[in-house]
């Protein structure tokens, strides 16, 4: 835990220091765009292929000056959406195999504003290059869990909400292609500040992440986003 706080502190301090040193080094250019709207390519692939997760990931980035920007990242959809069957007694002579059926949906959203600093710009083009940033993530999940056992003919239904605030650091790389199209690759590490779960439900750990620590206090996200730049 302390290590993570230390890393975040280092990132933030280096961000602020670098900004003070380099804020005037990049000149305005005709190619600059003030805004970028992006969607997450990875979540889009999941939307098509993954029966479990159906998320739309959108992001809006607004340039503050040549090397800094404000970003609002938003994921919404079904973070779990599946039906699971487990069959029993395959070789028994019965009309229908006994089974259990779980129907699980976890819908909700993540909203993650972050402040981004470009410490290296490609060809002096703003919003293009390597960046670091700090972010806050708030997520809200609503989970519905239905469990049916055909052997007892009993259905158990469970519903609850889970929310969490986290603080994180972001490392990113963004390319601008032909003035308008951007590709943004980023990775973030978040640390849970606090969480809340209703109806005595189990806390739901972050579900838009590629890694979550065993206790759910730390989680990491990678994003590949395709963007459209606009505005002068």
């Amino acid at each position, binding site marked *: 835990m302390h290590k993570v706080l230390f890393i975040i502190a280092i990132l933030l301090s280096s961000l602020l220091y670098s900004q003070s040193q380099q804020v005037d080094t990049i000149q305005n250019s005709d190619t600059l765009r003030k805004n970028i*709207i992006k*969607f997450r390519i990875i979540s*889009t692939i999941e*939307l*098509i292929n993954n*029966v*479990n997760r*159906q998320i*739309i990931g959108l992001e809006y980035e607004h340039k503050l000056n040549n090397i800094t920007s404000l970003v609002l990242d938003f994921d919404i959809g079904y973070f*779990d959406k*599946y*039906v*699971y*069957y*487990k*069959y*029993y007694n*395959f*070789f*028994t002579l*019965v009309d*229908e*195999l006994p089974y259990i059926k*779980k129907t*699980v949906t976890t819908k909700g959203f993540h909203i993650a504003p972050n402040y981004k600093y470009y410490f290296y710009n490609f060809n002096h083009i703003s919003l293009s290059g390597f960046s670091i940033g700090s972010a806050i993530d708030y997520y809200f999940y609503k989970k519905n869990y239905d469990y049916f056992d055909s052997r007892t003919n009993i259905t158990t239904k469970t519903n609850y909400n889970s929310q969490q605030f986290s603080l994180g650091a972001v490392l990113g790389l963004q390319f601008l292609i032909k003035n*308008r199209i951007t590709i943004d690759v980023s990775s973030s590490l978040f640390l849970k500040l606090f969480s809340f779960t209703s109806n005595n439900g189990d806390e739901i750990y972050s579900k838009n992440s590629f890694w979550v620590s065993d206790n759910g206090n730390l989680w990491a996200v990678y994003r590949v986003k395709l963007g*459209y730049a*606009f505005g002068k």
Partner: protein
Amino acid sequence: MKNKIHNILFIIFLFVLISCNKENKYEIDNLNHNTIMILGHRGMGELYKYPGNTAEAILPVIGIGADGTEIDIQMTKDSVLVLYHSDLLDTRTTCTGKISEKYWYEIKDCKYNLTWALVPLCTVDSLFELIDNINDYYFSFDIKLDGEMADNEEYKKTFLRAILAIDDKYNMSENIIIEGEKDFLLLGRSLGLTNKECVVRAGPIEKSIEYAVEYNFFCVGAETSVPKSVVKDAHNKGIRFMVWNAKNNIGNLEAIDKNVDIIQTDAPIHILQQLNRYDYEYQIP
């Protein structure tokens, strides 16, 4: 104006992607109440990070929702059933020689040759001890007889008695499928084994079906490349069909299309997801 059109096209594109969400539906027509029994191949399959035939590879496949797994079985000199595929221990472990020439105490500390983990050999007994509700799962025993003793009747009887002992200890005769040649299966039957018998290696698959009909075997086994018409023929004769060598998603879909009854797959995650039988709650270690 041009910018607005761009923006509108972008939003339409997003909605088109959303509407592309697909659901997979398969109409299965087989002798298992139209449900395919999904078995992992030696656990999670050949591409899994841990070697097959180990608890490290088998527990996850059960956790994600498979009905069980195929395992390769060899026997030590003191009749302990050990999960191992190759003829020699040298091939994959820190030990040497054949399992059939060793006592269990001599090889129980053998580890697979991995630089990043210590994965021990596993016995059927120790595996079954580890699995909760063992009677909810199915195991297909691919019997690996020692080639030099394969003609030794007493050796085969000892092997079969060891299986019988496991059957009795865990009440698993309904849940263990024994894969073997006709004569081996018949020998087991004569010793009182009541396991599901699956005849394999009989030459052409038609010959296996012929034996299955003649001797009332439960199923026949073949690779996923078997023609669909052969599977249908077996079903028409009341014989279940087990396939192996489903090494990837394509192999899985091929097996589903052929309406097999039991599949041994190296890509269990894919087929379980396809058939709404993947338990997303389980975290693969």
